[in-house]
């Protein structure tokens, strides 16, 4: 048997830092000898964090796919109604009804991206790095509800802008995220025009502050970070001209980031007391580089990071230590993650947080299935549980607190979902899963409840809804 204290840390490794135990796959005896080393080992990897599925397409390819679909739909609408194809189901809104309608090209691409992401989370050893990916993807979130372009790009955005930097530099991720077409479309920089630019003067168009404000408020300094309305406007001016090249090809290959000098507000800008000369595209790049290095940014990000992994009330000493790490390493995100798992608090703090619906769904899949659930099913389940994939309610991403996921509504919704899941897996023996899936750490109350269940289905539902399985 494994020693008691490292055994408790084994659950911390899989629940707090990973995606849950895979019975029969994870070697619990070996991991139990050194749970901290098991998590740390994942940070040492140098291989790219991208999915291996080579069928996934780049942003420019996806934009072309969507354009072709829209063109076909336009033509179908022009034909008599009886000839027209059925309207595409709204992937983000409506649930699929049996019999399943054929997927549109847009839905096919979204499902492929989702499947690749599910596969990585499901098959990872502990999954700490994949947890980091979802954390950063949520920090720099885009939402499919903005429109079909963002919807088809959301998965590619995560692969192209987030994953390459998860163990790299904050400044690199910041620049990649803000320059990605998905973000430029989501926060509406696409149509933001310098009032005194060529286009602005000709067409009487102007600024849209949306992206600039969220960069300051959400992505870097944080709401108390000491910026003013004037700083927001200045950054918005610097960002003018950052756009996605459109289908007309005027700015380059459609679907790639492009700098449109004709839309860029001319002149130097002052942000946070510093003057930025007008060097075109590089003006906002310089501003982002400075924002990534601000102490307020380090504090804001360290707070969110600790709140996500450790506790809703982030322990201040741990936050201070991680903020210091960010400042001293020029925003090195591998060092940030390493500092977290090197901290005793992060291993000793009780598991009080509630798994988000996505985390819960992955953990349940790892417990029950050798392979992840199909993307289509997962997408429907996440919609019902209030955490639709790549579609948070606002630019601040999905909530990360127990108030959001353990409130009466959310818990009732999860209860309903688990009831269905247990019905689908009623052939499994819940007592066996309990021993394998909790490394012998389930409470006696949970063991008793599962053992006394009137059916294996009921026992499995109790196991999945037990405090040990819900909390991380």
């Amino acid at each position, binding site marked *: 048997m494994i020693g008691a204290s490292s055994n408790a840390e084994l659950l911390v490794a899989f629940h707090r830092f990973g995606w849950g135990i895979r019975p029969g796959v994870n070697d619990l005896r070996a991991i139990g000898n050194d749970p901290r080393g098991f998590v740390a080992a994942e940070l040492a990897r140098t291989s790219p964090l991208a999915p291996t599925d080579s069928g996934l397409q780049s942003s420019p390819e996806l934009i072309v796919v969507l354009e072709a679909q829209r063109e076909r739909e336009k033509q179908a609408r022009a034909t008599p109604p009886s000839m027209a194809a059925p309207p595409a189901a709204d992937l983000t809104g409506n649930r699929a009804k049996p019999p399943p309608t054929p997927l549109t090209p847009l839905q096919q691409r979204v499902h492929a991206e989702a499947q690749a992401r599910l596969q990585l989370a499901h098959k990872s050893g502990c999954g700490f790095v994949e947890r980091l990916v979802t954390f950063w993807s949520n920090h720099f979130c885009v939402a499919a509800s903005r429109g079909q372009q963002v919807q088809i790009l959301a998965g590619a955005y995560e692969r192209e802008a987030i994953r390459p930097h998860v163990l790299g530099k904050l400044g690199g991720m910041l620049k990649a995220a803000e320059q990605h077409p998905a973000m430029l479309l989501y926060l509406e920089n696409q149509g933001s025009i310098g009032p005194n630019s060529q286009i602005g003067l000709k067409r009487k168009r102007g600024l849209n*502050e949306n992206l600039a404000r969220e960069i300051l408020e959400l992505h870097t300094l944080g709401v108390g970070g000491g910026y003013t309305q004037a700083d927001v406007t200045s950054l918005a001016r610097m960002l003018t001209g950052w756009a996605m090249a459109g289908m007309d090809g005027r700015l380059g290959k459609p679907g790639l980031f492009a700098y449109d000098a004709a839309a860029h507000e001319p002149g130097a800008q002052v942000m946070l007391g510093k003057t930025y000369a007008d060097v075109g595209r590089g003006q906002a790049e310089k501003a982002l580089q400075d924002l990534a290095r601000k102490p307020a940014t380090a504090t804001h990000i360290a707070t969110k990071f600790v709140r996500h992994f450790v506790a809703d009330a982030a322990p201040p000493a741990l936050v201070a230590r991680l903020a210091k790490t960010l400042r001293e390493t020029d925003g090195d995100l591998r060092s940030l993650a390493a500092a977290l798992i090197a901290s005793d608090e992060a291993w000793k703090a009780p598991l009080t947080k509630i798994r988000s619906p996505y985390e819960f769904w992955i953990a349940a899949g790892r417990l029950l299935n050798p392979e992840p659930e199909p993307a289509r099913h997962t997408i429907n389940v996440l919609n019902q549980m209030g955490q639709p994939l790549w579609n948070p309610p606002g630019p601040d991403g999905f909530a990360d607190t127990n108030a959001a996921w353990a409130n009466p509504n959310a818990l009732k919704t999860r209860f309903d979902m688990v009831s269905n899941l247990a019905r689908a897996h009623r052939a499994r023996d819940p007592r066996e899963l309990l021993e394998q899936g909790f490394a012998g750490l389930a409470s006696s109350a949970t063991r008793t409840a599962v053992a006394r269940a009137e059916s294996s289905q009921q026992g499995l539902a109790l196991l999945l809804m037990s405090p040990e399985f819900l909390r991380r």
Partner: protein
Amino acid sequence: MNEFAPRPSRRALLVSGGALFAWPHIPAFAHAAGGRDPRLVVMVLRGAMDGLAAAPPLGDPQYAGLHGALALTRSGPAAALALDGFFGLHPAMPQFARMYREKRALLVHAVATPYRARSHFDGQDVLESGQAGPGLVQTGWLNRAVGLLPPGQRVAPPKGLAVGVVTPLILRGAAPVAGWRPAGNHEPHDDLATRLADLYAQSDKALETSLRQGLALDVIARRETSALSKDGTDLAMRLPARGAAKLIATADGPRIAALSFNGWDTHSNEGGAKGRLGQLLAGLDGAFEEFERGLGDVWKDSVVIAVTEFGRTARINGTSGTDHGTGTLCFLAGGALKGGRVLADWPGLGEAQLFERRDLAPTTDLRAVLKGVLEGHLGLSPAALSKTVFPGSDAVRPMKGLLA
């Protein structure tokens, strides 16, 4: 869709035991002389609603120029509905306009919370927490108001319910609250819920409380959730309103409800008489109608309020929308109101009159409106309102004469 056939004994256990039903009481004045039994619903419109577009000041000489191509007019294809000669109402809201004519609806213009920066998240925090600034407490003003109601007869369901997946801050706090959401899942075997609640009782009290509350109101509202049809935004607001109205119209049901609707952040393509904002306002109009219809006999004792965290820029931005601003408006409807009025100390829209030269300047503190309703409708004292519900708001007097 939901074949719900609980064994009576199990259901009785769920609906009568433990932490879930430590509800305080039905307000004592509910059965007092005259039989007035007030209902209050607050709808939070998240994203900052453009008050100048929802109820345009047609009589202000600056309005048409500021709102440009999106401006509504007195006549023609972009005509606003008539309110009082100075203000019009967005044409997507004919039901609210009818209630206004019937003196059962009013609006207060140029209002704002005490918050003056322009972050949605902080703005909503101030709107819902009822504090002078963001991030001060984790409880909502409506929950604290519920806690002040005079205790009386016990009722089965809780006093407030939150419709939506996440309980909104406005209704979080010490007073018990439960909620439901429209859902399409099979009702699980009832015995499972009992066993799970027992398990939580032994090892996780927080989860136990949450589960018991989540299960309770779901039973009551269930019958109303099967009317899903494909009607877009409109129905998205109507359905929660319909379910909430059904619950609070019940004689032993809750008296106070809060709902929350997203999507009001119209940075681009806001639309004028038709368009994105128009669709949202049509949905809101539908929600008001659902409450009027669903509350039936108790509509005469009801007030339904719609509030938002702040307004939007007076000028149209570069993408045919509006950016985050300050002053906006608040809608009130219900049979208990002295309606048919637009209440506003109008600041004007001249360059120098705009707040920071960009936003409608707020001249009325939203807390004055809310205090006026809580005092006149629920009978809370101004002292308690300033101390507990909106701490530090002594200087903000409750608005008088809102109620009929």
